[in-house]
């Protein structure tokens, strides 16, 4: 079978995670490594204790072997997220967030919570942020018509959750036209 049914309906969260992990993150390496040509690019050299930027999948790999510390991206802090939640709940539009913030935050919290400031608080803030935005996406349905809908600043994971529903709803509206 060419494409299993589960994959036909939608892109899966693990696939989004795969893509998100190609993005770069800053680390403090605990081992040395020469500059190396990987398929996605040249990374390194790693010269402890100097910081380096490598893809998240690589950083997680090294972290799991205890060969590096991961540095939180600037948006993954309590202050930043609290700020965003305030913005989110006081304006109609979606606030601007990194497109793959849900995937990246989950991966980093899982692999490197000891490197992050207050991981439990971060998790709970992210949950609050998600719920505020989910409610907004539902409200956005009121303006759904058969041809266009603007949804700027929705993140990858959020789009993925509602995509099949929104697409089908739009299709139905198209068919109900005279």
């Amino acid at each position, binding site marked *: 079978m*060419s*494409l299993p049914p589960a*994959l*036909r309906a939608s*892109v899966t969260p693990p*696939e989004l995670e*795969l*893509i998100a992990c*190609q993005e*770069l993150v800053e680390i403090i390496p605990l*081992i*040395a*490594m*020469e*500059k*190396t*040509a*990987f*398929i*996605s*690019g*040249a*990374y390194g050299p790693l010269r402890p204790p100097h910081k380096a*930027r490598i893809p998240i*999948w*690589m950083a997680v*790999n*090294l972290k799991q*072997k205890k*060969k590096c510390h991961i540095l939180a991206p600037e948006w993954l802090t309590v202050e930043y997220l609290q700020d965003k939640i305030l913005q989110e709940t006081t304006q109609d539009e979606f606030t601007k967030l990194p497109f793959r913030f849900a995937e990246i935050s989950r991966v980093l919290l899982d692999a490197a919570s000891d490197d992050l400031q207050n991981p439990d608080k971060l998790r709970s803030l992210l949950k609050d942020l998600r719920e505020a935005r989910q409610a907004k996406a539902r409200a956005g349905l009121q303006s759904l018509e058969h*041809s*266009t*809908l*603007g*949804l*700027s*600043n*929705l993140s*990858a994971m959020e*789009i993925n959750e509602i*995509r099949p529903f*929104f*697409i089908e709803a*739009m*299709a139905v509206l*198209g068919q109900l036209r005279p």
Partner: protein
Amino acid sequence: MSGVDSWEAEFHRSKTNANAASGPSAPRRAPSALLEREDQPMPDFLPEEPLPDETPLEQLTRHWMNERHAPDILPAQDVLLSSLLDHIRRQSDTIQLLRGDPSTSEEEHIRIMLAQTEVERVKFIVRSYVRTRLYKIETYARYIIANEEVQTRITTAERDYASRHAHLIDRHFYSSVLQSLPESQAGLDDIPNFIMPPMVTEPDTTRAVFAHARKGTIARTPEGKTVDLAKGSLTLLSFSAVSDLVSSGDVQLV
């Protein structure tokens, strides 16, 4: 050449090779080097903000997602695909060499492990991209063999596959049902009359997609309405309104 030397050679090779992966640490290539735009002449005036440079892997990732979300088959990226497959093969060869070498250090082993992990990641994306296209080809096989325009978007191998698949299905329908029907009812190509849908399944290009504008552009809906797509914006609209923009790379599907 020893294991580590071949690794170094690969590194230098990728630096000098214009089409190979060059990550964020390498100098930016000019926009006209992007594969889709190679045969388009650069205008005399400065274009408003070139599209961000992408490594081949980033390009494939974008094409993969486009293909997953598009209701129709998109133009095949066989040049990109074969160059990446080449790269995978070279990387795998280097890995094999280094693994077999007893003199490799612990740090080397970590490098090898990382390279292996990456190869698996890239292979996953390549496989999924190819499978997605195959699924569409199977679903629309009969439509493809009758439609020349679609055939320009698929590779020769895919065309052959479509043809074989369509004939397989036809034979199956015929031998299981159609041969028992009167001849006038045994066709699979009936022309649709007022409310019946066509017998040959066609891709539904009116289906909505989430379009992310990589640069400011304008889309035209099937009814003729124009929609402004500001750079960075996200819009849910009919695929047919953006299909050209997706092929040109101005819009990507998310």
